[in-house]
């Protein structure tokens, strides 16, 4: 049972890690479209895109701490 939990947790952390490059590339693509069309996205969405790059890292850090302390 412990092994199964460990595998599922590792998969979750790995998938969360994939969102860091995805969100970074996504934002750069949005900035490129903004430059081409001259239409900027709303401020809220732009801020959310910035937050999304760092959020997975923060979550992964907390998850790793949880895993370490729970043994």
């Amino acid at each position, binding site marked *: *049972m412990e092994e*199964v*939990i460990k595998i*599922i*947790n590792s998969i*979750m*952390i790995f*998938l*969360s890690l994939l*969102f860091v490059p*995805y*969100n970074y*590339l*996504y934002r750069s*693509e*949005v900035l490129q*479209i903004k430059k081409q*069309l*001259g*239409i900027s*996205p*709303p401020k809220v*969405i732009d801020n*959310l*895109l910035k*937050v*999304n790059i760092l*959020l*997975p890292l923060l*979550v992964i850090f*907390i*998850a790793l701490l*949880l*895993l370490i302390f*729970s043994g």
Partner: protein
Amino acid sequence: MNTKFIEITEKDCQNFINLAGEQIQVIKRQHPFILAVSIFSVFSTSFLILILGSLLSIFLRSVTMALIFSSFIIITSLSFLPKAFLDWYYHLYVITSRKILEIRCVPFFSDQIDDVFLDQIRTTEIDAHIPDFLHELLDMGDVTIAFDRPSHDEVYTLSNIRCPREVASLLGKEFEEEMTHSPVWFKPAETPFVARISEDIYPAMKPN
């Protein structure tokens, strides 16, 4: 500026004017209901996966797993939320006095820009189509522009836009004016032909 027909700011409109004597007539996005449906589907899918994850965590009796799973779902839904919005935001229908343009940019996935110059086509039909009660209630529908190019027929659809009837009516009026002056399809007006008989050419032949 009429917000019923032009749904972006005046400053942004200038980016679409690049031909001589061009004037913006319609710039529309899809109805906000389409956006609401995408956002709802992101949240409902996340919620369903979250429930499944919670059940699995209860079954495996692991609090750590429940926390990691919830965090993953939050990250996923927060990443797909801007995508749902920007897919809708960068899907524009632009109709000017010189061209029809559809821009569909899905950042990081696909780009599609369709451009049709109005002086190279003949518009044959403009239809507004509101398929059912829900669309009628939300004033949402399709406007179909049928035109034939010298080589082939084509249908251009502005799908799920707001106020389809008003847009179709406006486009009908505007295109009628544009097409009348189109040199590809209509012969420019000339001086009327007057038939002459031999007496007009040779006045001497006129009987007294």
